[in-house]
């Protein structure tokens, strides 16, 4: 039980252009990571299974289905389901929420990031990827306020630079990284 307790949490958020990045990053991730990874991507309602399958095919890290009140375990990947927001309880339980869209999005990256900041404070490491809207920027600043770490994909290397640029305008990132560096950064956490 003890070793499975979540002490650190890695979040990856993105929108348009971020799936390519993930396809590049996932195969290089080490198994047995000491934290869960929660991935939140904007996408159309109903692509759930395909996205989960696509991600599971690309990595040896187990991809777990998120249902309401799923308890996170270290070394696993969780994908936020479409048409729900995802929130974190302090004990590492995931709570789903079907309320209003935020930044025209459900799931919204801001909602996931802000909730993680509130529940896990300095233990949150968030990575924001390519995208064409400003979702995620507020979330990054909340994580930063609460002592967490912000890593942003270099807008120059992003398919869509608007999302990473918006975040960089709002908060000073701890790291700005190229697509090629992301996996090794995660593996070293």
């Amino acid at each position, binding site marked *: 039980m003890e070793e499975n307790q979540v002490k650190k949490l890695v979040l990856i958020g993105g929108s348009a252009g971020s799936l390519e990045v993930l396809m590049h990053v996932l195969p290089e991730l080490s198994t047995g990571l000491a934290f869960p990874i929660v991935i939140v991507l904007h996408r159309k309602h109903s692509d759930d299974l395909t996205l989960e399958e696509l991600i599971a095919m690309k990595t040896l890290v187990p991809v777990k289905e998120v249902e*309401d*009140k799923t308890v996170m375990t270290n070394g696993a990947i969780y994908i936020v389901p479409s048409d729900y927001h995802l929130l974190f309880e302090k004990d590492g339980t995931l709570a*789903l*929420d*079907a309320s209003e869209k935020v930044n025209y999005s459900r799931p919204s990256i801001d909602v996931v990031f802000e*909730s993680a900041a509130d529940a896990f404070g300095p233990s949150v490491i968030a990575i924001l990827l390519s995208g064409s809207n400003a979702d995620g920027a507020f979330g990054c600043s909340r994580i930063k306020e609460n002592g967490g770490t912000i890593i942003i994909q270099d807008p120059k290397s992003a398919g869509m630079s608007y999302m990473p640029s918006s975040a960089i305008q709002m908060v000073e990132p701890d790291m700005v990284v190229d697509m090629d560096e992301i996996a090794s950064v995660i593996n070293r956490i």
Partner: protein
Amino acid sequence: MTDERELDLLINEVYEYYGYDFSGYSQASFGRRISRLMEVDGFKSFADFLSKVRSEPEYFKRMVEEITVNVTEMFRDPAFYRVLRTTILPELATKPFIRIWHAGCSTGEEVYSMAIMLEEANLMHKALLYATDINPQVLETAKKGIFPLRMMKEYSENYVHSGGKNDFSGYYTANYGFAKFNERFTEKMVFAQHNLVSDRSFNEFDLILCRNVLIYFDKQLQDHALSLFDESLANLGYLALGTKESIKFSSIQKKYQQHDRDKIWKKIK
């Protein structure tokens, strides 16, 4: 962000002053709703907010309306409605009378969707739809059966994906940007305020739908609500939950059998 101690204080005061018990709500979700409400209404401090909730019953009503989530759609998750249409309703058709409970019906879109399917299955004459919610405001909307016209395109697509074969626009009349659903549907509905936390079972049903309501509760309150549904279901009746909800690990699990991989369970004991 409202901290845990503040939330506890609010929950205690609300219970003491108004008798509503929010202690079993998911902390992450309840906290987020309260923070948003405080921000929208421009509160500078939690103390100001608390004192307003305490001293103004009208504001407390607003709080209840704002923290309960009222996002709903007609034929939301069409695949779910397709299963009801093709498998569950034909089975219920053999009964002399069909009672359905929509628990946490919000503004009623799901209830009207069900009414349309019942009519198409020729079951309307022997069906009764009970629709309840904690929030009296949304029930007023539900009773009227009037929804924004701009939503109808999406609802009509959902309807078709759920297996609907008629012209969806035949079910409502459009006027001034609103769609009013035919009163023959409303006549088969009973609306009532009901709190899943504190109110009891009030009838026996053949089908209970409670979709995307339990996600706002903690495990313990979820279990309480599921037991309430269990008490309210006839033998061989069905319980339907939201796409990411489950009765797994609950105390009623062993009495139920899941329908394929759908979020529909049959009471078998």
